[in-house]
Every structure is written in structure tokens, then in C-alpha cells.
């Protein structure tokens, strides 16, 4: 008899998700669904609010990547007011972005995904977590905690608050950095840089070689990619053109205000989360594993695929080695982790670079703004992918319309595809065990997904679907 396997919740993800795998009579995978079960919604919440309050409000949405929302929102508000932040204001924003990135990437690699790699997917479920990692590699565990703490301390020094930041304001940054504060932060950032160098060297020597077979098979799908680049093709996580690359490696760059000309969102009945796709490819949307249509990916691997180079020397060297080894575009899903470490190094280097820049302690951190009717689109590369905030205001500067596309949403289709591919590969003849199921989870975790703020629908539907295939061919659909 046909059978439905359910893995819920997918552990070590930010937010809830539920994976449903339908097996056919032969015990092979018939279909899979990554179901989003958490209800959130804030676009509507934004309407009627003063746009300058938005950068503060959006950080309360979710504590997972507050800085990305904070900065994308501040940039959208810049656009509404028609202002360009001062050079110092921009650099302070970029500094916070880079430091926040180091915290997130360290957390994800070592403790969220790290449990799979350090302890192995077959390790006891009860120990395959952060405590297990810390016990297996205690010295590294201490360094992880220490360096994440340093990141939080830098953000406290630079912005006064690391949890729900308030200092990026329309027109710039509200808090200048003193020489003394810069000196304290630079010392800490230099320490994080040393840890970033260690991390990638350690992973390349002790972690990745053991999993190269899995890397070449698990979750591999051929899709397009999206990221942000400067005019010369250099990767940029704070600002630039959005580059949309087809699976064959050809690409187009566009201004973020034009995003609706290039991407559209598909709504499917079994998920709260919309499915963005590349509208400009004119092929529609299809998650067929062999012939996907319109599907692109964001996040670390995507950013390395679309860019031509990195701006910091050590990360550039790692980037060159990565590209030489895996080509462009690289479709190997588990290499998101490797790309994450290249980005960790980049951000650590960039934070040090910014703190050594004399302009970082400039006193003109913001320009004045005046409320007006307008539209502003702000985007940054959040750790989990391209994050777009799009606001419209009336003549009092009150928000009349807000649209957000968050990083995990871009990866909704590829996450579903990667899980299906992994499940088909690893579950045959009805045989499976916990290690196999965890490997399916690994295909999701590679994207570092955060579903907490990715779900926007407010119509009351719950996004769970379980299909039970009967031997006679009838399908019973259960939804809650």
C-alpha cells in the first residue's frame, strides 16, 4: 500500500516547515512537498505608518536577520524621500551588515548545518545538535561562541543595539562612531577575521573532503541564480544591480526598482509561501526536476555564481579556487555551505577594511529628509538571499503600499525541488532510515532557510497538504 512519510518539524531551521514525501506502491518517491506551517504577515501591518518608522518596525518582525530587514527598509525609505546617505552613513550601514553576516554565517555553518557535517547524518538524533557539536569539537565550539559574541559586541558599540537595531535612518545612520569606539571594534573585528580564516581552512581540510560524494549527488538541481553586483561585476551585499543568471550562465543586470519586470510570484494552493520565478525568461513556472522553468536560486552559492569577483583579497583567492574547482554556474546544492564560508571570510575582511577607513568616524552621518509622496525600493543581500522592500507613500509620507520579497521566498521552488531530488535518490523500494531522512533535511538546510518572515498570506488557510496515494490510484488529499 502506498505510504506517506512526514518529517516535521525540519529541525535546526529558522521557523517551521513540514516535509511530506509520498511513496508509491513500489515504495519509491512519488512526490514531495516542503510545507510551510507558520503564519506571519506584515505587509498589511505597514500600511498607514510613517515611512521613517519602517526601519525600526521591520526588525521586530523576526529576530533571525533583523539587520537585513533594517537596512533594506532604510534604503527603501531613502528612495521614498529621494535622498542618498552620506558616505559615512553608508559605510556605517555596510559595517553593521558585514558584522551581522559573520554572526549568521558562523552560527549556520558550525551549529545548524555543522551537526550534519561534524557528527554525520547518521549520528544519534539526540546528540546531533549544537550541544553535540560542542562536545565533539570543544575548542572550536568555544571559538564559535566567542566570535559570535564579539560580533554582537561590535554591533552594540557601533549601533547601540544588536537585537532590534534602530540606527539606520532615512538619509543615513543616526549614531557617529568615535575614534575610541572604532579602535575597540577594530580589535574585535580583527579577531573575527582570524577565526574566519581558520574556519574555511578547517572545513576544507577536515569537513568537506568527507562529504564530496554527497555534495555531488544530494539535492543537485539545475536552476538559474540571483545576486547583487557592482557595475564591474564585483559581488556586493549592500547595494548594486540585481543580476539574474539563467541555468546556462547567461545573465542580465537590472535596477532593483524594476524587479517586477523580471520576477513574478506564483501562488500554489498547498503553501502559504509564494513561489517567485524569472518572468523575464518567458517560459512560465514549473518545478519539474528535469526541465524546470523559471526557477532561480538566491543565497550564498547563487551570489558566488553570479558575480565576477570579490573585493577583498583573501576571499577573492578562495573564490577563484572555488570557481576553478566547481565551475560557473555551480549547481551542487550542498556547496552552499562552502560558499557560505567564502562569504564569511569576505565579510570579516570587509568589516576590518571599513573600520580602517578614516571616513568611518566622520561626523556627517545623515542627510535631512522631508515627507513626500513617492516610491522607494531598497534591497540588500540578506544571508538567506536577495531581500527587497518596496514602499509607496502619500504626500504625508505615510505608507500606502508595501511589498516585500524575502530571501527564503526566492528559494521556495528550489528547496522543494532539492528535497524531491534528494528523496528520489535516497529512498528506494520503501527502504529508509533516520539517516536518509536527515539527508533530505540536509538538502533544505543548505539554503539556511528562514520561514518566519517569508510567509505573508493572511487569508486564514493553513499551509499543510498530505496526499495519500491508494493502491487503486485514488488520491486522498488531507489539508489542515
Amino acid at each position, binding site marked *: 500500500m502506498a505510504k506517506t512519510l512526514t518529517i516535521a*518539524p525540519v529541525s535546526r531551521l529558522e521557523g517551521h516547515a513540514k516535509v511530506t514525501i509520498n511513496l508509491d506502491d513500489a515504495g519509491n518517491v512519488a512526490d514531495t512537498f516542503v510545507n510551510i506551517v507558520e503564519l506571519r504577515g506584515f505587509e*498589511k501591518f505597514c500600511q498607514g505608518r*510613517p515611512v521613517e518608522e519602517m526601519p525600526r518596525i521591520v526588525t521586530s*518582525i523576526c529576530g533571525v536577520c533583523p539587520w537585513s530587514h533594517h537596512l533594506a527598509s532604510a534604503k527603501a525609505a531613502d528612495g521614498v524621500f529621494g535622498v542618498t546617505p552620506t558616505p559615512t552613513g553608508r559605510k556605517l550601514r555596510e559595517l553593521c551588515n558585514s558584522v551581522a553576516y559573520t554572526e549568521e554565517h558562523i552560527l549556520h555553518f558550525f551549529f545548524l548545518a555543522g551537526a550534519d557535517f561534524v557528527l554525520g547524518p547518521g549520528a544519534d538524533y539526540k546528540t546531533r545538535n549544537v550541544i553535540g557539536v560542542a562536545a565533539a569539537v570543544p575548542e572550536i565550539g568555544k571559538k564559535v561562541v566567542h566570535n559570535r559574541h564579539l560580533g554582537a559586541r561590535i554591533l552594540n558599540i557601533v549601533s547601540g543595539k544588536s537585537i532590534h537595531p534602530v540606527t539606520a535612518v532615512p538619509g543615513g545612520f543616526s549614531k557617529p562612531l*568615535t575614534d*575610541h569606539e572604532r579602535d575597540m571594534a577594530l580589535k574585535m573585528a580583527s579577531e573575527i577575521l582570524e577565526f574566519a580564516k581558520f574556519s574555511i581552512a578547517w572545513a576544507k581540510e577536515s569537513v568537506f573532503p568527507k562529504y564530496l560524494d554527497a555534495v555531488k549527488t544530494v539535492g543537485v538541481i539545475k536552476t538559474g541564480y540571483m545576486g547583487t553586483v557592482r557595475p564591474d561585476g564585483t559581488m556586493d551585499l549592500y547595494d548594486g544591480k540585481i543580476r539574474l543568471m539563467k541555468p546556462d550562465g547567461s545573465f542580465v543586470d537590472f535596477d532593483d526598482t524594476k524587479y517586477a519586470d523580471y520576477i513574478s510570484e506564483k501562488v500554489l494552493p498547498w503553501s502559504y509561501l509564494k513561489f517567485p520565478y524569472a518572468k523575464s525568461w518567458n517560459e512560465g513556472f514549473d518545478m519539474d526536476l528535469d526541465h524546470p522553468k523559471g526557477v532561480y536560486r538566491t543565497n550564498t552559492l547563487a551570489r558566488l555564481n553570479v558575480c565576477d569577483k570579490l573585493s577583498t583579497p583573501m576571499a577573492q583567492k578562495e573564490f577563484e579556487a572555488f570557481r576553478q574547482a566547481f565551475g560557473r554556474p555551480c549547481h551542487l546544492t550542498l556547496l552552499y555551505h562552502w560558499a557560505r564560508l567564502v562569504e564569511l571570510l569576505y565579510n570579516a575582511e570587509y568589516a576590518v577594511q571599513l573600520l580602517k577607513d578614516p571616513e568611518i568616524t566622520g561626523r556627517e*552621518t545623515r542627510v535631512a529628509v522631508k515627507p513626500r509622496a513617492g516610491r522607494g525600493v531598497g534591497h540588500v543581500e540578506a544571508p538567506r538571499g536577495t531581500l527587497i522592500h518596496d514602499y509607496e507613500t502619500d504626500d*504625508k509620507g505615510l505608507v500606502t503600499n508595501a511589498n516585500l520579497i524575502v530571501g527564503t521566498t526566492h528559494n521556495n521552488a528550489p528547496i522543494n525541488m532539492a528535497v524531491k531530488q534528494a528523496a528520489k535518490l535516497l529512498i528506494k523500494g520503501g527502504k529508509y532510515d533516520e539517516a536518509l531522512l536527515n539527508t533530505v533535511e540536509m538538502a533544505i538546510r543548505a539554503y539556511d532557510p528562514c520561514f518566519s518572515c517569508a510567509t505573508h498570506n*493572511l487569508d486564514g488557510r493553513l499551509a499543510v497538504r498530505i496526499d495519500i496515494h491508494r493502491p487503486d490510484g485514488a488520491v486522498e488529499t488531507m489539508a489542515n
Partner: protein
Amino acid sequence: MTERSPIGLAVTSVHRDPAEERPEPEDFLDKEVLVIGCGNVMIGDDGLGPAFIKHLEARGGAPAHVGLLDAGTGVRTVLFGMVLAEKRPKRIVIVDAVDMGRAPGEVFEIDLAEVPPLKADDFSMHQLPTSNLLRELRDQCGVEVRVVAVQVAWLPDELRGGLSDSVAASLERARELVERLY
């Protein structure tokens, strides 16, 4: 909500002496007791925790050995670092809204074992599915963990801020209970 308060929009710089030696902001891990208000201020009574911290601050704050932290939706970051940190408070007091079928606005202390599964997930932020970070803090790290809960009355389907009257009225009772745990 539509009242404009454009104060600050015309500001272009804040005059700080670049040579000023301002100490690093206080580290909450240095405190002997840490009171952590958790919740989302956009989901009605779920914003109890942050509102509670503001309530305490408006009434003179806390003694020097006690830290007050509005962790909002970022409690993951706080607890996660604390579990493996070399220094940490001796006691933490979590203040959060729960739905355990009690009278709306009722203030009560709960044992970790009683934490509803959904809230256990919230505390651990899904990283430790078979336990949670609070239990790890208590059992592995020797931190005394107390949980002060307030029964919710209003959790809107759509995002809306503000506490219900019964939960807002509980803030002072919650303060009396929490201050006994200093």
C-alpha cells in the same frame, strides 16, 4: 496611527567629540540576574515580554546586579550564546505570554517541564528538537531558570500591536512577582 511625528527628520548630524572615550555598552552576560522579555510586539498579547521590560524601566529599572533585556523576537540569539558562553548570569527570568487556558491576564510561574511544546520551540528556536535551550541552561550550565508567564487574552490572526486590557493590567502584578526573584 496616522498622526505624524516628523521630529528628527531634519537632523543631519549628531555632535559627538570623536575623541570621546565612551565605555563599551554593558554586557548582559555580566549580570547576576537577567530578566528577559520575549515576544512579538506585532501580535497582540504576544508583546507582553517587551512591554514588561518597558514597564520596569519606566519604574526606575532594576538593581545594579539585575539586567533587563527586551529580547523581542531575538531570544534565540541571546540564549544560544548563553548556553556555551564562558560567563553567564546565575539566574535568568523569562517573562513571556502563554496560552495555557487560565484566566486572561493571570500571572503565574511555571516549571520548565510545563512549558507548552509550541513555546518550547520558541525558546529553542527549533535548534534542539529533543530538548530546549532553557533546559540545557539549567541542566548543563547550572543556570537557575525561572519562567514567569501571563495568560494571553488576544492573539490576532493578522498582525496588530498592543496588549489587551486584561494583559496590560497584569504588568504590575508580574513586576511584583519578578522582583521577588532578584
